[in-house]
């Protein structure tokens, strides 16, 4: 069988996240339906051509469903809590309801529908773009690329990321098994499927944790407890600062504060990495380094974001 040259593992997992975040940024910056549809189409196309047979790659349909759900809820709410401008062209009319001064339903204009769809599509595009990154980036390989100091945090994240597809797999298996016994009356079908699947997933992740522990995970070399605590506090603080900075950058007008937060956060993380990596006992096997392809994809993603900002 010929190897698919566009397979997900051809790129560094961080590149996939970069691409996903770039697409999400484009979607959130634009309010044009065509752009949102373009982002969705691109993300879905990349997902379908590049995904491999891995547990975390089976959730394409799941992200599409979330997207569809977001759009329909958005449109439905705008029809119910209708605030159409009566001057615009009317798409269809519903019997208006007045509830203590709140107007529901009534004449729905094309413009209302369009802006609701654009809103919904923007959210859907963000969800699907992030979903793409999650589908294509191999969490275990991403873990390999994190600096030593963040290893434990990254492992916790990887296990959490792994848990979701595992849970989906268990859910599918239990649902299939439950079809043998039939759905009971009175007992919520949900709990009868979710309980065994959750138990199963938790058991599995405990098994994985035990196996990691038994193979030496959690050794900290000759790092003292104080050093370990400092490096953990610094790394956690750094991540928090960067998250706040991102929020301020996007959401408010205090740009200068955001930049200060960002700089401090990055410094904190750099310091942690220096402390811990120097005394790190752990070694890495065949670490994947970003290649030319990665640089190219990252450059194109960045260019696309800048283009949207400039236009």
């Amino acid at each position, binding site marked *: 069988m010929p190897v698919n040259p566009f397979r997900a593992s051809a790129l560094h997992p961080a590149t996939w996240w970069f691409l996903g975040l770039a697409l999400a940024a484009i979607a959130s910056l634009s309010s044009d339906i065509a752009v949102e549809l373009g982002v969705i189409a691109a993300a879905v196309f990349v997902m379908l051509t590049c995904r491999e047979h891995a547990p975390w790659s089976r959730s394409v349909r799941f992200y599409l469903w979330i997207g569809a759900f977001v759009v329909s809820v958005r449109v439905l709410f705008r029809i119910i809590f209708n605030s159409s401008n009566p001057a615009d062209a009317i798409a269809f009319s519903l019997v208006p309801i007045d509830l203590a001064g709140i107007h529901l339903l009534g004449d729905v204009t094309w413009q209302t529908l369009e802006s609701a769809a654009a809103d919904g599509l923007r959210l859907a595009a963000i969800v699907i773009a992030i979903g793409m990154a999650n589908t294509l980036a191999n969490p275990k390989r991403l873990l390999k690329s994190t600096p030593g100091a963040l290893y434990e945090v990254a492992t916790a994240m990887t296990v959490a990321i792994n848990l979701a597809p595992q849970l989906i797999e268990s859910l599918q298996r239990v649902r299939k098994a439950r079809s043998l*016994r*039939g759905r009971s009356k009175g007992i919520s079908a949900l709990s009868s*499927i979710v309980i065994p699947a959750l138990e199963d997933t938790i058991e599995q992740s405990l098994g994985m944790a035990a*196996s*990691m522990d*038994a*193979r030496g995970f959690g050794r900290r070399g000759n790092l003292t407890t104080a050093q370990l605590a400092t490096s953990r506090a610094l790394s956690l603080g750094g991540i928090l600062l960067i998250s706040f900075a991102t929020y301020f950058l996007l959401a408010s007008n205090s740009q200068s504060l955001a930049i200060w937060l960002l700089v401090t956060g990055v410094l904190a993380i750099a310091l942690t990495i220096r402390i811990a990596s120097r005394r790190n006992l*752990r070694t890495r096997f065949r670490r994947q380094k970003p290649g030319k392809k990665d640089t190219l994809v990252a450059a194109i993603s960045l260019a696309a974001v800048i283009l949207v900002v400039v236009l």
Partner: protein
Amino acid sequence: MIEFVNLTFGYRGAESPVVSRANFKLAAGEFTLVCGPTGSGKSTLLKLFNGLAPHFTGGNLQGRIRFSGVDVTGRKPHELAELVGYVNQQPEGSFVADTVAEELAYGLEQLGATPAAMESKIQEYAELAGIAHLLEAPLSSLSGGQQQRVAIAAAMAAGQKILVLDEPTSALDPLAAEELVTLLARLSKQQGITVLLAEHRLERVLEYVDSVIVVNGDGSVVKSAPRDAFNNYRLLPPVVEFSKRVGIEPTALTINEAKLASVKPLAFTGLEASISGELAISVENLEVTYGKTEAIRGVSLKVHAGEVVALMGDNGSGKSSLLWAIQGSGQRTSGSVWSAKGDPAKLSVIERLGAVTLVPQRASDLLFLNTLAEELAESDRFNDVSPGETAKLFLQLSNRTDPKQHPRDLSAGQQLALVLAVQLVKGAPMVLLDEPTRGLDYEAKRHLARAIEKLKASGRSVLLASHDVEFVAQLADRIYLLEAGLVKTTGTASELLGFGGVLPTQVAQITEQPGLLLAEQVIAG
């Protein structure tokens, strides 16, 4: 090498300790079998070796554990990682990497080996475990047997001298299991690795081990020579049962020993040929395709009322797919299934439960309530039978059990009996069982065999998929052997599992007498 001194371990809140005042020593290169009934604490005993008990499981530890004279009591699993390699029942659940080489590297990375050392160690241990050709393969593409080999190589790659394995063969077909056990024997003899292996199917390992640790469940943990271990042991592998029955002294533990000692020919009663009733189910040209994978490529089979039919074949030969497709809720690409009540695929769930019922490989997937009593009552309600019916059926299939117990706390055998009762109470004449003996000890298997015989006596038919040659020989009237989605061969148990058959039982191998498969057939004289 390893020494347990006065070791006591118990879980908090439990009435009695799992291990009570255990004293034993294991030498370097010793291959030890750990056996005992389900739930007796075999897994716990194994976890004591690398600190998973008590650090991972919780519980109280007293006494001392020494490795080569060094006291390691109370050390954490990751502190013992370079000394002890640990392999659990389901390797696929505990893999941390994606490819074989990366998986072998994981332990080495944690212990700080240099990249050059890693490459050479990985090569060395992959060759030892016979997986050198698979190093770049993704783990998910491997067979169960290969996955276990990877798990073993990964557990030893950092040069661990002690290897602890918790029922590694339970999901493997007979051939893969045999290969795994010989690999372990080779590691202990040639590499001087101390191997501890928990296993239910004693017949698979007895001829290779140097010693046996019996965990009784009442806290007593006794190490002895294999021959002494079975003098007072209730659960006997077929070779031992045979040699006791025939009167071989001292008790033969391996097929070769028994072969040399037994006098031939032996008088024996033939296996009863079942009188087949009416046709219960007829499968015509069934095909199942998942995407591009052809799981079943045109299988036809018939089962009659009162007949027990077994599906055998390697992992991946299509046994499960076939059962699910027959039951009707699994995928079918083409072909048809006939039953007296119509094609099960065309019936509603409740109608189907009156025609054909399936107990899946993981019976516990069907259980979701908090107590046994609730599960039984729910089954009465759902199946619309009078209250107490399911409980009555459960009692027939299992021993008396506290109704307030949580279904997850039942033993594997009891869980199976519960699911069987729930699935059978609607009176389906056709019962499908997928690997029912997985994880069962001899006692539980005997219970299950009795339950199946009762079903048979009441005129129901059973179609069971199984790797367990001895279990199938005991029960099956006919066998279909599957290979790559096709029926490779079909015949009676005597034809396929007897002397000269494809999968001879231990007794057939010893006596080499056609038609003699089981120790209980021999007329004691």
